């Protein structure tokens, strides 16, 4: 068993004036596991740091223990520097965790320092290295969904040089934007907005578009997903390194609300879009009602686009029908930011009328066969009024596409209670718990086409940087600074196949595999993040984390309060 070199930092007396470093030195020089003990004044300062590095390098010291300041301070950089010399380096916090916090008890602090160093020595002597896996990352990508988000992701990936498979259940790319004649706030045509992207799917040789195609099965993990597609030309088997889910969402049909389906000229925003597309919309007074079927008990969320959408359509009604009036009945006007707030001001200046109502007292539609008016209690003025109108437009929210849940299950990512794909909170909005699977667009959460395009770009660069590595070590696939501790591994001989680990793993990294007449747990290294839950629930210790195995923990516990002489 190779020995350990111990470096103790005096920290210019900050540690040394409380902890008796000479006592520690003498004690551990006599320890059979220790090769040498060196006390320096300041391990993080260039001279002493260099000295430690040279010592480590020249004496080919395989194991180093540092006693210095806290891991949240400079000590971590010292540790990383020494680790570059090829040694396994651990550290004990002798400053914030010992000398400073027990400053009035030098004897107690010295005893504690001795114990903590002893414990780390036990760790270094008993730890093992996890088996790593070098993953060859498949250099192709699959994008599911060819709306603005999916198009943006596919084009971004292709421009970065990756062969991209773009799948859509419809016959052509474009998604919902295909039917939008004008997009807010610029009023550019919907298809025009994504024209470059759509053209590129045809022109860029790296993009292959599969229309009327669905996903039939998914196997594998980050870097190597085996996906089967089913389309008009039969089945296709793909092996891709990453997958971008941009499967979109549906717009709620306001069945049974405000006379929709019973009274004529009570329509949805999609329907008014279609009327604009076929020619001028003829009406004298259009009334838009916001939050229909949204921000209620059933769907307590805001669908992001409906307020700006109504502003756009209200202005269009007035532009295309000189003398026409437009009313927007709302509970709050959701136009956050600079651009949208300016758009709201523009609508106000244009003459769109805004009436606020409370959720408890929604407007009522008037008319038998055709809409004739809307009665609304204006909560700002406290007066009820009837607006004569010949067109009522209902703003309904995005709802999760009915196929989202199945897709999420196939790709093993969670969905939230509304059916939208869940992301890694809080600053990885297009990434999911399953590495290699990215989400963007309205299937993630209701957003505008601009936001969907930006999310597609975000997913593209993240997928591309993963693929760009070409080979990746499973141990490096960690969001934790310093990398993964290791990989859990089950001893096949001892494993009883109980399945506790399979149930508890947050990343679905444990699987039961049949060997002969038993089931044995197998850890998918690419997915394991070393949280340790599987180790904790294993009934007989078959599952271990080699870097902090049961011998390590047991020895550390035994030494924690050993008498110090």
């Amino acid at each position, binding site marked *: 068993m190779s020995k350990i070199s111990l470096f103790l930092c005096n920290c210019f007396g900050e540690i040394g004036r409380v902890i008796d470093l000479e006592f520690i030195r003498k004690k551990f020089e006599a320890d059979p596991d220790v090769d040498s003990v060196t006390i320096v004044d300041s391990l993080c300062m260039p001279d002493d740091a260099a000295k430690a590095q040279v010592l480590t390098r020249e004496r080919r010291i395989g194991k180093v223990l540092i006693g210095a300041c806290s891991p949240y301070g400079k000590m971590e950089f010292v540790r990383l520097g020494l680790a570059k010399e090829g040694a396994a380096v651990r550290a004990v916090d002798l400053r914030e965790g010992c000398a400073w916090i027990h400053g009035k008890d030098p004897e107690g602090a010295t005893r504690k320092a001795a114990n903590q160093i002893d414990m780390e020595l036990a760790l270094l002597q008993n730890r093992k290295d996890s088996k790593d896996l070098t993953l060859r990352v498949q250099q192709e990508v699959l994008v599911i969904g060819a709306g603005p988000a999916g198009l943006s992701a596919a084009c971004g990936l292709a421009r*970065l040089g990756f062969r991209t498979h773009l799948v859509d259940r419809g016959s052509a790319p474009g998604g919902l934007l295909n039917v939008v004649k004008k997009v807010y706030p610029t009023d550019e045509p919907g298809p025009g907005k994504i024209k470059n992207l759509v053209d590129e799917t045809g022109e860029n040789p790296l993009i292959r578009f599969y229309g009327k195609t669905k996903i039939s099965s998914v196997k594998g993990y980050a870097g190597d997903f085996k996906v089967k597609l089913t389309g008009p030309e039969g089945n296709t088997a793909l092996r891709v390194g990453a997958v971008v889910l941009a499967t979109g969402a549906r717009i709620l049909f306001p069945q049974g609300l405000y006379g929709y389906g019973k009274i004529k000229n009570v329509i949805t925003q999609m329907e008014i879009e279609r009327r604009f597309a076929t020619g001028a919309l003829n009406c004298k007074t259009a009334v838009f009602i916001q939050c229909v079927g949204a921000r209620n008990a059933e769907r307590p969320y*805001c669908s992001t686009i409906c307020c700006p959408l109504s502003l756009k359509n209200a202005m269009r009604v007035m532009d295309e029908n000189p003398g026409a009036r437009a009313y927007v009945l709302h509970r709050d*006007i959701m136009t956050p930011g600079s651009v949208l*707030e300016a758009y709201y001001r523009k609508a106000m200046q244009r003459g769109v009328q805004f009436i606020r109502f409370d959720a408890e007292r929604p407007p009522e539609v008037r008319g038998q066969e055709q809409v004739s008016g809307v009665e609304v209690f204006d909560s700002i003025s406290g007066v009820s009024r009837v607006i004569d109108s010949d067109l009522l437009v209902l703003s309904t929210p995005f709802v999760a596409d009915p196929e989202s849940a199945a897709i999420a299950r196939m790709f093993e990512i969670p969905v939230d209670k509304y059916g939208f794909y869940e992301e890694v909170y809080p600053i990885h*909005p297009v990434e999911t718990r399953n590495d290699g699977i990215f989400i963007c667009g309205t299937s993630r*959460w209701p957003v505008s086409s601009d936001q969907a395009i930006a999310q597609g*770009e975000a997913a593209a660069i993240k997928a591309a940087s993963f693929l760009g590595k070409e080979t990746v070590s499973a141990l490096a696939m960690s969001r934790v600074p310093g990398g993964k501790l290791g990989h859990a591994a089950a001893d096949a001989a001892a494993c009883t196949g109980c399945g506790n680990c399979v149930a508890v793993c947050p990343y679905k990294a444990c699987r039961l595999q049949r060997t002969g007449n038993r089931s044995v747990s197998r850890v998918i290294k690419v997915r394991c993040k070393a949280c340790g839950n599987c180790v904790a629930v294993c009934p007989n210790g078959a599952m271990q984390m080699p870097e902090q195995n049961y011998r390590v923990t047991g020895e550390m516990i035994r030494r924690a309060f050993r008498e110090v002489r």
Partner: protein
Amino acid sequence: MQPTEKKKRTILVVGGGVAGMSAAFDLADSGHRVHLVESGHDLGGQVAKLDKFYPTDHCAFCPLWTEIRRCKEHSCISVHTNSRVETLEKSNGSYRAVITKSTPVIDPDLCIYCGRCESACPKGVARPIWEHAYPPVYLIDGDRCGDCRTCADVCPTKAIGFDREELQAEVAVDEVIWSAGFTEVSLAPLKEYGWGTHPDILTSLEFESWKAESGENKGAILRRSNKAIPRSIAFIQCAGARDLRLLPQCSAVCCMHALKQAQWVKRRNPDIHCVILYTDLRTVGRDYYEYALRDFGGNGVRLVRGRPSLIYPLPGGDGIAVKFEDTATQKREIWKFDMVVLNGNLKPTLSSLPGDNARPELDAEGFVNRTATSCGFVMEPADVTESAIQASSAALRSILADKS
């Protein structure tokens, strides 16, 4: 469109907050070189200094700490703290940038956080950096320093230098991403808000650090005037924002920010009466409306729709009056509060930088004009999630930008 843009670029990212770090990391992870320039002492920006974060209601520094460390440790990212981009010249499709670094009096590379300067300083101007900076260092408040230099004598690593010169580094970069975030704008010109007339009328960021768990009051909710427990707090939305006199934009983050602050006040002291005076309660974003719903039952924070016309300290010194119209009842009210928190006065940082700072073209409201690549609040008022998305999007666009 020509595919295969495989040549590695060098990108300058100006601003090291959530947006800047997300962009920098995405670029570096794809093999491109990044110069990440931050004017403050450490990366993390405004969000790292917040007490809590919405909608998770957890601490803000912890997730950011991971990003900060990843940026500092990545071999492709050069982090320039205490720095600014002084000049930026474009020529032949690329840029030459001069990055000026003003190493603070206490050099963070040499400071070991021993605190001897703090003990030695007769005026108490040597103080530790904010609570959750890793690694921690000490700072000297230059404005109040008496120049006795005692600290320099006691510093064991000779980290203290009073006559430092600025260091300049010239770098050649292919693209620039602006991610300088937001700063507060003074509400003094809008006299009706009463900011500056009483210690208990404060902005939301002032209130955030005042009530911080890691702050001087350890999370206790106290009046700033006399440290007594307030009986009531008013949160005023759209203070300075959606106001053609000062900031025409909607600052996007304040409604959720007020809900978060008010809910935390109630958690720490359920007896404090909290009222949010709003115009539109903008809860656009994942799970935001549900977050607000917690208060609609009337058991928690009270939401009142009305924009105050006047906020003034009451004569006699006890309390602050808020005059407004409650649009639900159409009645004019004057309510008394012990504290008033003003939300909304955020502007994009680039709109008010001193002269020795390069900046891109800005639009009339101070946001980066779309001719330049930007992300986060300098582009458009945005919360953390939106900023992270825009940052990744900006990173992609900076790699693919046509160089001709």
